[in-house]
């Protein structure tokens, strides 16, 4: 059973979003997503300073099974990326909501993350996928 923390927001494409106190949002992939992908071997993060549209493919996670795009959950500017993942992609598997975060965005619209799914809605979607 995968872990879906209640304090985060989620997307249909399995990203999680955490609103930070400085107004930025941190983005990663859910425990369910890392479980489906299996052991990651490569993570490509977006460029710091680049601006992303909501839903734009801006990072790539690659496992031995598949390569998958990660989409920007909200529009905004990339203010930080997790540099550690270049050498340790396995952090996404071992700690998807902590050390395995992917990038941080400064949202164009401060309230945008509020429109995403809450943990219950996301868990229901995952369960429905069977």
């Amino acid at each position, binding site marked *: 059973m995968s872990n879906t923390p209640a304090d985060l927001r989620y997307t249909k494409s399995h990203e999680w979003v955490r609103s930070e106190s400085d107004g930025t949002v941190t983005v990663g992939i859910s425990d369910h997503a890392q479980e*489906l992908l299996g*052991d990651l*071997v*490569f993570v490509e993060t977006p460029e710091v300073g680049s601006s992303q549209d909501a839903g734009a493919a801006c990072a790539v996670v690659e496992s*031995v*099974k*598949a*390569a*998958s795009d990660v989409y920007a959950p909200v529009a905004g500017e990339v203010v930080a990326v997790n540099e550690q993942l270049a050498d340790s*992609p*396995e952090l996404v598997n071992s700690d998807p909501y902590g050390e395995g975060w992917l990038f941080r965005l400064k949202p164009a619209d401060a309230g945008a993350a509020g429109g995403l799914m809450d943990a219950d809605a996301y868990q229901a979607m995952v369960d429905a996928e*069977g």
Partner: protein
Amino acid sequence: MLIFERSRSGRRATAQAPLRVADVSALPERFRRGTRAPLPELSELDVVRHYTRLSQKNFSIDTQFYPLGSCTMKYNPRACNSLAMLPGFLNRHPHAPETHSQGFLACMYELQEMLRDVTGMKGGVSLTPMAGAQGEFAGVAMIRAYHDARKDTARTEILVPDAAHGTNPATATMCGYTVKEIPTDDSGDVDMEALKAALGPHTAGIMLTNPSTLGVFERRIKEIADLVHQAGGLLYYDGANLNAILGKVRPGDMGFDVIHMNLHKTFSTPHGGGGPGAGAVGVSERLRPFMPIPVVAKEGERYRFMTEKDLPQSIGRLSAFAGNAGVLLRAYVYMRMLGRAGMPRVAEFSTLNANYVMARLKEKGFELAFPGRRATHEFIVTLKRLAKETEVTAMDVAKRLLDFNYHAPTTYFPLLVPECLLIEPTETESKETLDGFVEAMAEILEEARTSPDKVKGAPYTQPNRRFDEVRAARELDVAWHPGAALDEAAEQGRAD
């Protein structure tokens, strides 16, 4: 064990030794090496045994059933090899004048014509791309050249269904396009509403594989072609699954403007080990001016290469001469052996075999990804439920198949279907072989339920057990580093 590790100082094999030592005294000193190259030293018999043993470790279509199918490589009939290696072909120099190459050029011209005929691409065929990837590149480059020639430069997007081959978005990106992904509906067809919403003045074209990678035929292809053309875009056909429709349905008739054909897939040329390949491209009339050169033309009874002079708008040359001549000749012989009547038999038997295996696996309790659909030349089994109940995954089943002496089918592709096996038997397999494979699959399914650990530990009978694929990908190290023995040999060389 590597051949270097078998090396013993002073051992010699004379069979391959050069008759005389090359004189390098004319080479400037700075280009000459100071020490001997660290080459392994073995006897002739050591070398014979080493490579014979390696070849026995091969898991190949010449030795085992290989349900990767035409996706990787079909059986290569021996006659194609022997005929392509006739001395007249083998000894022809690529710079030989056209007057001395009429036989070869005639074969290439006929190959172009046969491919044009069987695909319905009325504008013609160019054989010059050296691989499927280069064929794809040539195809999209022609789409680009077409729009550019019309000064229609606002078209910056290529649409790619999510059931397409992974190479398609890569090719579009290489050609400078932005990729827009189109989802698939539940029955495996392109989502028409999403397609309509994505089409517009920015659409340069769409890249489609039909039948798609989901092992089903795109039923509304005509409607898709009309919509894309109405929006001003062109249609690109990825020939990866041509085997299923060969001689039955023609991409040209479906409305496609450009197609690349993997001759190593559909037309039985060698491919294993990364090539050489051949990715011939066929075009509709409107893309003809942009074809990559050279293309063979027939004038009266003479054949010649068309060049920049004949096709000034060509996207250019993709290879030093005219593609991989030896591979093209094998495809030519294969097509001539099949003849017009044989082409549809390829499609008929490859789809019959796939549907037979699919029906029998369903009987044995396997879950089909698209149970309502008839298979094309391949079909998908999903082990999602099995993985949930027993923790035995598609990868475990694939590994266990090796113990039953069957090559694993494609695993975890297409990405849309979880825990999937993509099974393609091809037309050359007998009913007995297919039955044997079905029985093995049924036995593995039974094992997964009764003793899952057994399946998860497979393979047991191969030269190697399970590889650490994660570590191999994370810490890729394929270079062999000379050890002490060879350092010593190099020292010795320096002393000589």
